[in-house]
């Protein structure tokens, strides 16, 4: 068993983790490591479209108020307002800093960055990096981390956080390549493992966002918050299966049209059609139709699919035939090559010319909830920190496009890295509880050693489908209770009997999946319980039995924690430092009319559709 002594251990190699590691390595006395189950840089950070909200830059600079207000509207008042404000104040500095790290932003003038306006509900100017720039941000952070001597452990999957009564003592994991158990002895452990979108069968993010950080932190008693919220995107591809949910043609539209023509204007001429040939938005939002807000579109599409009026692959048809040809031309010409090739990979030429409807469906894009942190990235456990999508505080119910990169990963990354480093400075070498490590080792190796039991891949698919159906876009008490019962059963009876057919130790993906599935199942239960607890509808948590927003009772975060005696779920009151709920524009309350389930034979319809 390898024991690796590092003062600060960062779990996760995305932007948030790397930024924290960079900051921690600024203290020369400390040794800093980044461990990731994927490559470094990796995760969802490299996939981002590269949108930054920046204060005070550009031809018409946005003010802090602009972005702050939009953030609160998007987050539906569940944000940690102090955190948003502080990070916005520091955000521009963090973006400028990227050039010091080695990034180079595309320029409009020699001394002016390239700006790009994206449509937002308010007034903020989004500052977008051209050319899939987000990848290059991750690259710059990686390079800076190498320069500062941060040690990388790619493909080392951390499986548990170790704590003692004094706080974090380290972590355990498997070195995937050799299949060996490793122990990190660290005073500060930063969880930057990203979100839990892969808990759903269709996710827009990378396939490795399986909520590992949530589960690991929860198990050692960290408080999670807002776990019921999931952000959805309504227009992703459904085919081929491996690439399901990967590309969203409407975002591509936004990027290609370059801001002067809004997507909503294009959507004026778009028709959403179900398999019955109905323009179903008439039922959900007769005023705004397809131009309704994204939440409404997600619910409408999901409901059509749920009630068997969707296509076989679980989506609807987006009919763009009446959109002026000129826009299609601009779309096809305006796309950069990457987008264009990605679309060609999944759609036919006819579909791309908008002569045939595009089949699209909703996918999970972000987990706004997570490990509850304060402004310094601290959790309720000393020495345990969280940052990025693994944490909760910044976004409320949903992120505002451009906030994830700039203020969440970079600004909070720096703050968290600094706190973690200062904590480590004060501590002597931590004492690992070897009994607990041994127990963890047994747990991790059990699926590999078991000769028979439950199939890893089957359980994974089962969880993903169940989450999508019952803890997905539309939730209700009955479904949630069933889901909780199911997940409880899985956690108690099935998970302990997981086994892998593949018994090799080196690079055993089935084994890795078995460990992920354990984390996923725990997360799934947490999310379902939180969703059941919140008896209102807000953001990405739509309860059809409580379809209204309930400001009087529910302008609070949902906390969930493992305490002696089981899972405790409760509300966490929020401090409204700058804006009281309702101070600025609420998103209009919207009550969808639900229709009874379609009772005919869907296969007849599918045949008719062809």
């Amino acid at each position, binding site marked *: 068993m390898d024991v690796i002594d590092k003062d600060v251990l960062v779990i996760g190699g995305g932007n948030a983790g790397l930024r924290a590691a960079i900051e921690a390595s600024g203290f020369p006395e400390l040794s800093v490591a980044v461990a990731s189950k994927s490559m470094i840089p990796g995760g969802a950070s490299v996939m981002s479209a590269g949108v930054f909200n920046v204060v005070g830059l550009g031809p018409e600079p946005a003010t802090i108020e602009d972005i702050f207000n939009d953030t609160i509207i998007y987050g539906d008042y569940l944000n940690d307002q102090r955190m948003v404000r502080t990070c916005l104040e520091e955000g521009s500095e963090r973006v400028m800093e990227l050039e010091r790290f*080695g990034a180079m932003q595309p320029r409009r003038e020699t001394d002016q960055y390239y700006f790009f306006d994206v449509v937002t509900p308010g007034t903020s100017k989004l500052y977008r990096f051209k050319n899939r720039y987000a990848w290059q941000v991750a690259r710059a952070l990686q390079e800076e981390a190498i320069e500062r001597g941060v040690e990388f452990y790619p493909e080392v999957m951390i499986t548990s956080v170790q704590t003692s009564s004094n706080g974090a003592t380290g972590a355990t994991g498997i070195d995937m390549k050799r299949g060996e158990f490793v122990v990190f002895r660290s005073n500060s452990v930063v969880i930057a493992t990203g979100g839990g979108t892969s808990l759903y069968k269709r996710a827009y993010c990378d396939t490795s966002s399986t909520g590992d950080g949530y589960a690991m932190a929860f198990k050692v008693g960290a408080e999670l918050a807002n776990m019921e919220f999931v952000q959805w995107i309504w227009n992703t591809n459904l085919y081929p299966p491996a690439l399901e949910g990967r590309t969203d043609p409407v975002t591509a539209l936004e990027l290609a049209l370059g801001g002067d023509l809004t997507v909503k204007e294009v959507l004026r001429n778009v028709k959403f059609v179900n398999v019955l040939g109905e323009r179903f938005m008439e039922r959900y939002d007769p005023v705004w139709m397809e131009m309704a807000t994204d939440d409404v579109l997600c619910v409408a599409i999901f409901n059509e699919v749920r009630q068997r009026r969707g296509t076989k692959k679980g989506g609807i048809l987006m009919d763009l035939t009446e959109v002026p040809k000129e826009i299609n031309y601009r779309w096809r010409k305006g796309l950069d090559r990457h987008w264009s090739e990605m679309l060609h990979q999944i759609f036919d030429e006819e579909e791309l010319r908008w002569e045939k409807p595009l089949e699209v469906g909703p996918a999970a894009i972000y987990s706004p909830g997570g490990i509850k942190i304060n402004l310094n990235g601290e959790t309720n456990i000393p020495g345990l920190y969280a940052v990025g999508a693994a944490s909760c505080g910044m976004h409320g119910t949903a992120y505002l496009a451009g906030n994830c990169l700039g203020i969440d990963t970079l600004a909070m990354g720096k703050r968290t890295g600094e706190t973690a480093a200062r904590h480590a400075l004060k501590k002597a070498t931590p004492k690992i509880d070897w009994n607990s490590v041994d127990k963890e080792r047994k747990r991790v190796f059990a699926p590999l050693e078991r000769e028979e039991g439950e199939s890893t891949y089957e359980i994974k698919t089962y969880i993903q489908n169940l989450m999508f159906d019952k803890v997905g876009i539309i939730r209700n008490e009955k479904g949630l209770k069933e889901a909780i019962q199911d997940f409880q059963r899985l956690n108690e009876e099935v998970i302990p009997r997981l086994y892998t057919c593949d018994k090799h130790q080196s690079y*055993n993906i089935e084994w890795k999946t078995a460990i992920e599935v354990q984390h996923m199942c725990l997360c799934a239960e947490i999310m379902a319980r939180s969703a059941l607890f919140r008896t209102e509808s807000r953001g990405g948590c739509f309860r059809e039995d409580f379809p209204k927003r309930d400001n009087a009772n529910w302008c609070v975060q949902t906390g969930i924690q493992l305490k002696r005696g089981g899972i405790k779920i409760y509300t966490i009151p929020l401090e409204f430092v700058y804006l009281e709920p309702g101070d600025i524009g609420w998103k209009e309350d919207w009550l969808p009319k639900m229709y009874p389930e379609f009772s005919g034979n869907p296969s007849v319809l599918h045949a008719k559709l062809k």
Partner: protein
Amino acid sequence: MVLKKKKKVKLRVFRYDPIEDLSPRYETFDVSYIPHMTVLDALMYVRKNLDSSLAFRYSCRQWVCGQCAVKVNGKPALICKTSIEDEEITVDPLTPFPVVRDLVVDRRKVQDRIKGIKPFLMRKNPAIKEPEPIDIKVADTFVHLNQCIDCYACVSACPMISTKKDVTDGFAGPVTMIKLAKFALDPRDEADRASAAYSEGAYSCTACAKCKEVCPWDIDIPTLGIRYLRQLLVERGDVPKTAQDALMNTYKYGNPWGQRKDRRGEWAKDFNVKNIPKGKNADILYYVGCTPSYDPRIQEVARAMVFVLREAGVDFGILGNEEMCCGAPMLRLGEKGLFDMLVEENLNLFEKYNVKKVVTTSPHSYNAFLNDYPKKGLRVQHYTQLLSELIDEGKINFSKKVDAVVTYHDPCFLGRYNDVYEPPRKILEAIPGLKLVEMPRNKENSFCCGGGGGMMWVDELGEERACVVRAREAVSVEPDVVATACPFCLSSLEDGFKIIDKEVPVKDIIELVKDAI
């Protein structure tokens, strides 16, 4: 699309666990075809339904994480980007990386090489103001180079690496070069990137452009990466001695071989070829090139050309002693100044003698005139293109049979650079009695002979040379003759056969045509 729904795809996958298995093996899986299917779909299907122990990496599914590069039908590619178009597909791990398991390779050695070049911005003085003034074009090029996603497909495709036993043997590879070029280009970076480029093997590139072809992001590694670095090295005079001599010779004598200028036309002295500078008019200028003018072996090619063109009744002439080097190798060696000078001189010559159409022996000259020279309305053809037209017009009468099994080696500057794959094959197939067989790697997948990019004048690093690997590959299809259409390929391959001690004649296509007339 050839495949229809419900068809089966045969997926041949490399399997190996170095700890448990004695040797690697291939396993075949049948997977049902679905529209828009990618290799990732097929592999995921296998892992989920047929064999859960199949190891491969993937994460993002949209070509940005760089983890899933493998060899699909021998060609390095991202599995999430590669659509299935054939009924049979072979998936191998990237070579020459050590295999961790199945399709997963250990990339540490390349990562260490990259780490060795200090892959981070090195500057002492911080910017005075931010955003720092940087030229818009420089920033755009930087962003283009910085698109590299570390998939290492280029490393696996590079003929200067894939021939070696190990990634650490010699050339550090296109990926390291592209990173060095990025920092060298960066006006903020103060480190000496050019020296690093020299020691990492900037003079090991054959400019075959295979790296650019397999790059999922189409990064122009040969031009913006390696040629740029070589230009910096030439400016400082850091060029291998042998290449330095070639450059100096070209400067002095108009050819890299250091031969006398007044003997350039000597090869043709018994043939009474029209000499355009001596007042003879001709429809076509036959641009011979340096190597065919001076190298005794390649002179045969030029003479064969004269014979064939005459037989076909083509009205052509040469520039004789006035001909100058086309400059293609000089440009690839990084001597842009010399190249510009040669461009000017050559264009002046063409203008002076009213040349409207040029036919070249070498694909290197052809590519230079066509793509590197300023567009002046000059019609440029490689001789294989002209010949294939002549065959179509029935102007070439074959009277003899060439009873031989022939395999054709695609020159990079003809094939990959200019998509000329069919004309050479058409000519060979038109020769009576000749049987054309293809090498395992042909056309788009062809493997460089190791002689391009100025490598004729530079010693190759590492143990096994590319020409040897290609010669062995040629031997594997048991040909009587190996044909090619490039003077450099011809020389390199002859070297290759000499080294492996096999007596397989290497001939230019034109020589085979001559034999058949």
